[in-house]
C-alpha cells in the first residue's frame, strides 16, 4: 500500500523533510516505524523514543498498535503544544 507520511516539529527536523510517500506492507504503525528505523540513522534517531512521539492516522490521533489498513496519511510528531 502507498502511504503519505508527514513529520512535524523536531521529528521533521531529525528526518530532514516534512513529508514523503512510502510503499509498505506494514500492518500496524509499529511495523511501519520498525521499517523506517531500519532504513537510515536519521529515522532511527527520530523514532528512538516512542513515548515522546504521537501519531495521527488520516488526521485522527491513534495508538502505535493501530492497524494501517485503509489508511492514506500517517503523521508523526511530538506531543502538541497549542494554546
Amino acid at each position: 500500500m502507498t502511504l503519505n507520511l508527514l513529520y512535524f516539529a523536531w521529528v521533521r527536523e531529525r528526518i530532514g523533510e516534512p513529508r514523503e510517500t512510502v510503499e509498505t506492507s506494514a500492518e500496524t504503525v509499529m511495523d511501519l516505524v520498525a521499517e523506517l528505523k531500519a532504513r537510515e540513522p536519521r529515522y532511527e534517531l527520530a523514532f528512538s523514543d516512542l513515548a515522546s512521539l504521537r501519531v495521527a492516522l488520516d488526521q485522527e490521533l491513534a495508538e502505535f498498535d493501530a492497524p494501517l489498513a485503509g489508511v492514506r496519511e500517517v503523521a508523526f510528531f511530538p506531543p502538541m503544544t497549542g494554546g
Partner: protein
Amino acid sequence: MAVPVRISVQAEDFDLATELSGFGHAANTGATVTFTGLVRDDTGALQHMEIEHYPGMCEDAIRKIADEAANRWALTDCLVIHRFGRLVPGEQIMMVATAARHRSEAFAAAEFLMDYLKSRAPFWKKEVTREGAEWVAAKDSDEDALSRW
C-alpha cells in the same frame, strides 16, 4: 444543537474587538468569557516564537473540541482563533470566546477549550533566542489537566 461555533486557523493577527462584534448576542446569553494567549518573554532573551501546525488536521481537531464544549455547557456562542508562523514577544497567539446563560458555564467551557487546545490541537511551538532554537516541551501538567473534565 445549532450552536454557532466559529474557528479560524490563521497566520494573521486578530483584533479581539472585531472578532467579538456580534459575539454572544443571543437573548439567552448572560455571560461571555474570553481568553487571549500572548507570546511571553520573561527574560528578555526571546527573539521570536515559531508556531508550526498540521494544516489538514488543525481545524477538524479544534472543531471537535469546540463542539464538545458547546454541547456540554449549552453555549450560545463559541469562537476559537489560533495563529501559526513567526510571532514576536507580546503578540497574540490565540483566543477563545464562550457565551452561555451563566458565568460558571462560560468559564468552564473556556477552560476546557484551553486545556484541550493545549495538548490536542496539532500545533508545536519553537522558541528562538540568541543562543539558539528550542522546541517547547509539552508539560505533564498539561496532560494531567485533561483528567478534570
